[in-house]
C-alpha cells in the first residue's frame, strides 16, 4: 500500500529524516513511537506530501509521489489524516465539516454526502452533534468528528499524528476506541502515538524512530518485551 525507500528530508541545515525504508501493507496497523523531535510527524506528513521531501521515493497506492505527473490531490483523496489539534473548520457545522470534501472533491451529491456523514457520526457516537459548531465540542468529540471527516472521503489509508496528545486524560479512551474499531474493520493505518497500550493491543508492527532513522521495528511483543537496541530500551524505560 505504501512503499517508502531511502526517504530523506532536511529543514535548512537540519536533517530530520536520514533515510527511512518501510513498507506498509494493506490492512496493516503500523504504530510509530519515538522521542520528541525524532522526525515522526515529519515522516507521516511526507506520506501525503504535506511536507515535501528531498531524496528517496514514496509510492502510495501505486502513485509515485515524486513523479511530476502524479496528481497530489488525487493521492490525498486516498490518504486520510488526523491531526493532534483536530483542525476542524470552525466556521462550519460538524455536518458541513464532514460533507465539504466529498461534495467538492469527490463531487458527491449533497444527499449522498449527508447520508454518509450521518452514518459516520453514528459510528463515532455523535449523531446528535451534526448541527453544532466545533467550538461547542469537547476535545474528544472534536477528534472523533475529525476522524469521521477524514473517513468520509473513503480513504484507503489513515494517518494519525498523536491523535490523543491534546486531550484530557478522560477523553483519550473514546478516541482510541474509535481507532480500534477502525483497525478491526481492516483499515490500513499509520499511527504516531505515545499510547503504548494502544500500540501493543492494536498494532501489527511497531517502528521505533530516533534521530531521523528507524532504529528498530518488529511486532509489539518484540519491541516492548524484548527490545534489541540500547536506544529503544532507554526510551521504553522512560515511557512505560
Amino acid at each position, binding site marked *: 500500500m505504501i512503499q517508502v525507500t531511502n526517504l530523506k528530508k532536511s529543514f535548512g541545515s537540519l536533517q530530520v529524516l536520514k533515510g527511512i525504508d518501510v513498507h506498509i501493507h494493506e490492512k496493516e496497523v503500523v504504530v510509530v513511537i519515538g522521542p520528541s523531535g525524532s522526525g515522526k510527524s515529519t515522516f507521516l506528513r511526507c506520506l501525503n506530501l504535506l511536507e515535501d521531501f528531498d531524496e528517496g521515493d514514496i509510492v502510495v497506492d501505486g502513485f509515485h509521489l515524486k513523479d511530476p505527473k502524479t496528481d497530489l490531490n488525487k493521492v490525498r483523496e486516498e490518504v486520510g*489524516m488526523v*491531526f493532534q489539534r483536530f483542525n476542524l*473548520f470552525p466556521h462550519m457545522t460538524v455536518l458541513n465539516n464532514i460533507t465539504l470534501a466529498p461534495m467538492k*472533491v469527490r463531487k458527491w451529491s449533497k444527499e449522498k454526502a449527508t447520508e454518509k456523514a450521518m452514518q459516520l457520526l453514528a459510528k463515532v457516537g455523535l449523531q446528535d452533534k451534526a448541527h453544532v459548531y466545533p467550538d461547542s465540542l469537547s476535545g474528544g468529540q472534536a477528534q472523533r468528528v475529525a476522524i469521521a471527516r477524514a473517513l468520509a472521503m473513503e480513504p484507503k489509508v489513515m494517518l494519525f499524528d498523536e491523535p490523543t496528545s491534546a486531550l484530557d486524560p478522560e477523553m483519550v479512551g473514546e478516541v482510541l476506541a474509535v481507532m480500534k474499531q477502525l483497525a478491526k474493520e481492516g483499515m490500513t493505518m499509520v499511527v504516531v502515538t505515545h499510547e503504548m497500550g494502544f500500540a501493543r493491543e492494536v498494532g501489527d508492527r511497531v517502528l521505533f524512530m530516533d534521530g531521523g532513522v528507524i532504529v528498530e521495528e518488529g511486532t509489539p511483543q518484540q519491541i516492548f518485551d524484548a527490545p534489541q537496541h540500547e536506544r529503544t530500551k532507554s526510551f521504553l524505560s522512560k515511557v512505560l
Partner: protein
Amino acid sequence: MMDFRFNIIVEYAPFFLKGVLWTIGLSLVGIFFGTILGLAIGLGKMVQNRLIRLPFDWYVHFFRGTPLFVQILLIHFGVMPIFTAQPNPLVSGAISLSLNAAAYIAEIFRAGIQSIDRGQMEAARSLGMTHVQAMRYIILPQAIKRMIPPLGNEFIVLIKDSSLAAIIAAPELMYWGRAMQGQYYRVWEPYLTVALIYLVLTLSLSKLLHRLERRYDA
C-alpha cells in the same frame, strides 16, 4: 468666537452640500477600487517567488511610506499630465486615494489570511482539496471575518484623507471650507462646520460597520 456668524454658513450651505457629495463620491470610489486593487496586491505579496513578490512589496512600501499629500501632488501635477492636458482634480484625487488605500488594504488582506492557523490549510489539503478550493471554502471565509474591523478603520481614514484633495482644488468638502475662509477671513465658521460634517460621515460609517460585524458574528 463671540460673534459666530451663522448667516455665512447658511450662505455656503449649497456649496457644502455639493462638497459633501463629492467627498462621499471620492470615498466610495477609493473604497471600491482600493479594495479590488488591494486584494490583487495582497495576493501578489503572498506569492512564494521573491522576484514576483518584489514589485508588490515596493508598491506597499511606497504608498505607506510617503505622505498621501505628496502622492496627490505627484499624481495630479506629474503623472496625470502625461495622459491628459487638463487633469481633472477629482479624477486625480480619486486615483490617489485608491492607490493609497490599496496599499493598506493589501496589508489587511495578507495579515487576515496569514492569521488563519496553518492547520486549516493542511486539513483542507489532506482531504484532497486544491489550493484554490481550500482558500475559497476554508481560509477566506474565516479571514474575511477578521478583516472587517481593520477594513472599516481604513475606510474611515479614507473619508478623512479625501480632504487632502482640496490642495489640488478638487471641489470636495474641505475645498469649500477653505473657499469660505478665504472669502470672509473667518476661521471657526468654515472649519467647525466642515469638521462637524466629517464627524457625521465617519460616525455613520462606523455605526454601519458595527452592524455588519454583529451580523457576521451571529
